[in-house]
């Protein structure tokens, strides 16, 4: 993929994009290293006070059981970021693959894929996930799959629109006239020309997935105790809202910074390769 052979420094990223990139990078590092970064082990009740305010021992206060909030948020990042990334990657991979097949093959393949996935779009996402989680039970695997199924049609729609346009260009016709197969045309001729827009779409869909998972957890159908993502942290500490405890606002801020960071980054990604845009 030629985009990666171009040094990253030549991708001019405006300042808001750099800020977004920094935020996203911080949360990614936190997600990977949280067991070593967290001052207290997962789930340890360490304080006498519940909903304690910020202090030297507990920089972000404590939760409804008296656990260190900083550790809870850092460890929650791992689940929120990890599950969302996995679900988004799965949705985008499936969506883009099906879109390429539909665009290159055309005809009935395109018609069947497009109608089936359109039908999926028409199901309200929160209701769909409630039904799935209620019937299959909630585990990380089920959550990832549910979110992936919900966001595949959107990824498919975007990628198909791109791929159909590229498929009509002469260099694809030349490949067809040469006798190249569907797989080659998908992978070598079309895919490299849609990397940047697909990357942007990936970021957008990642934000949706974070919000969906947080919503599910807030309703109590997402990540189950003793594990906690940021959505469940908001829910379990909801009572602290009346005490003015930091425990309820901190995970909400974490969700906000992650989604804003991703948005800043993708809004400022270059739209064309290596500064050719004139």
């Amino acid at each position, binding site marked *: 993929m*030629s985009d990666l052979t171009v040094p990253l420094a030549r991708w001019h990223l405006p300042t808001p994009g750099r800020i977004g990139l920094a935020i996203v990078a911080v949360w990614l590092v936190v997600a990977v290293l949280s067991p070593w970064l967290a001052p207290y082990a997962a789930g340890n009740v360490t304080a006498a006070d519940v909903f304690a305010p910020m202090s030297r021992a507990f920089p972000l206060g404590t939760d409804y059981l008296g656990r260190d909030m900083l550790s809870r948020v850092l460890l929650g990042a791992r689940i929120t970021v990890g599950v969302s990334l996995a679900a988004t990657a799965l949705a985008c991979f499936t969506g883009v693959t099906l879109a390429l097949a539909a665009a290159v093959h055309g005809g009935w393949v395109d018609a069947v894929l497009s109608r089936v996935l359109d039908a999926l779009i028409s199901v309200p996402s929160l209701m769909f996930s409630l039904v799935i989680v209620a019937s299959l039970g909630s585990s990380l695997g089920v959550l990832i799959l549910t979110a992936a199924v919900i966001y595949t049609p959107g990824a498919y729609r975007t990628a198909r629109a791109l791929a159909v346009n590229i498929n009509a*260009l002469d*260099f694809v*016709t*030349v490949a067809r006239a*040469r006798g190249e197969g569907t797989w080659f045309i998908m992978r*070598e001729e079309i895919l490299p020309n849609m990397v940047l827009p697909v990357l942007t779409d990936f970021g957008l869909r990642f934000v949706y997935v974070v919000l969906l998972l947080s919503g599910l957890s807030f309703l109590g159908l997402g990540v189950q105790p003793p594990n906690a993502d940021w959505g469940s942290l908001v829910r379990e500490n909801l009572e602290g809202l009346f005490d003015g405890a930091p425990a309820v606002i901190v995970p909400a801020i974490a969700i906000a910074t992650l989604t804003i960071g991703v948005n800043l980054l993708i809004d400022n990604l270059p739209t064309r390769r*290596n500064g050719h845009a004139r």
Partner: protein
Amino acid sequence: MVSVKGLRVTVRGDGGNTVIVDGASFDIARGEVVALIGESGSGKTTIALSLLGYARPGCTIAAGSIHVGGTDVRALSASALASFRGRNVSYIAQSAAASFNPSQRVMAQVIESARVHGILSRADAEAKAMALLRALALPDPERVGQRFPHQVSGGQLQRLMAAMALITDPELVIMDEPTTALDVTTQIEVLRAFKSVVQQQHTTALYVSHDLAVVAQIADRIVVLRDGVIQEVGPTRCILGAPTHAYTQSLLAAADPAARATPVVVPDVADPPVLRVEGLIAGYGGINADGLPYLPVVRDLAFAIRAGAVLGVIGESGCGKSTLARVIAGLLPAARGTIALDGEVLPADAARRTREQLRRVQIVFQSADVALNPAHRVGRILARPLQFYHGLSGAAVSRRVRELLDMVRLPAALADRFPHELSGGQKQRVNLARALAADPRLILCDEVTSALDTVVGAAILELLAELRRELRLAYMFISHDLSTVRAICDEVMVLYAGQMVEYGNRNALLAAPRHPYTDLLIASVPELRPGWLDGLAPMRLAEAAGGVAAFSEAPCAFAPRCAMRLDAVCATEPPPIQTLAKGAAIRCHRTAQDLLVAQTDRDLTPHDRSHVEA
């Protein structure tokens, strides 16, 4: 009226500012038409736009003075510019289709600038527009204004745009390649309309074009531009007759490639043809009960191309010439007929052809820009057919890539570049090299020089001629441009609405008697001679104004436009194919004698005559 002095325009780039127009100075007197001639990238549109006080995004008018009718354009404020543009200076763009709002009626758009500037009331503006439409010889001027842009033909839309530009009686009209996108026969009526209205209204105009022959018909003086620097300024007759500057001379030489035409290869009849096509019918839409496509685009074609020979396929847009290339390549399977390569009948669909069959027919497209994958380097683009057809790998591939680049006269270092780093001519050479990588027998060239500047295109034609001699390649060369076809082809087939109307060797095409449509095509090509446009016969103009080559069920699709039609038979019986003594076949009811009398070579230039005699 117009005075430009020391104009300098710069564009912001990675490494600071680049000068794209440097020290341009010229004047236009009241009622004078001055042409700005140059290749793409020479800065001609940039200069034209600067007269509107406009620089494209990233560009800056850095120095110089621009005066239009006593107004210092550079001194105008943003709001003063808004009332200046469209009122004092108006602009006619190349693509009228892209310049009209598709959701508004034509009349509302023609009078818009008069209304916006508050010059005329709606009723007065419409009355004035009507007079302009008549002056521009638009058919049915009372009703054309009530149509939407998509209901009006391209040639008419271009004239409506001229009416739009003239409605405010501007001090200067800028015409930016206004006929470049039109077919030659349509170009005639549009040019004539422009010329007559310019003369009637004593319009001062700047005519931007790359086409010297067109400019010769309409301009009083010519400014020759290259790389943003003015090379030569002079009256039209002097520039065309006695150009002093070497660059002008090379432009003139490239405008007439027939002068350097390669000799006709006399096909060795003993050789079996590389390609033989018989009874070919193809089109779009479903297949009906007769086994014919719903919209036939190529109808009953038969021809052959011998090894090392070049067949030219010529016709106007929509005549089915590009479809023909797609059908032969198997991209659009033929509904009927046979395509035989070296005597072996090919399956109609490329998907059912063997790799070896595919290898021997390669296709090269018009727009080099979209024919090369922007994500791959040149080396990789050329390597793929080598791996795919010849199973080469490793060092053998890179050695062959270097050879291929050398064959198309490109440096080996280009293998590491991306397509967007190449010029238009270089891209087209890479396209050609990719076709050569397959070691084909036949290359289908679809308008390969049409998107290129004249000089660059002429170099590509020379390269094609060399490659054909060295490799004994056969080409099917598709073009709408008669002089290009004459420069490279041995035989020529003229298509009209998907049917062959004339098929013969290149020199026979120039000699009377010809098919009436061939005759019209030849007569429509502008000549490098002022006064050519005014000297056209009325019969010719009626045919040229006849509209576009549309598919019809009529026995002869050209009959409705034909000045020589026989009302009794042309509308009822399919015309027979006659073989003429000059060595060409035509599809026409008229006898050779009739055609000869009507066409006694009045349209031929002395240059053409010498060709016919030779």
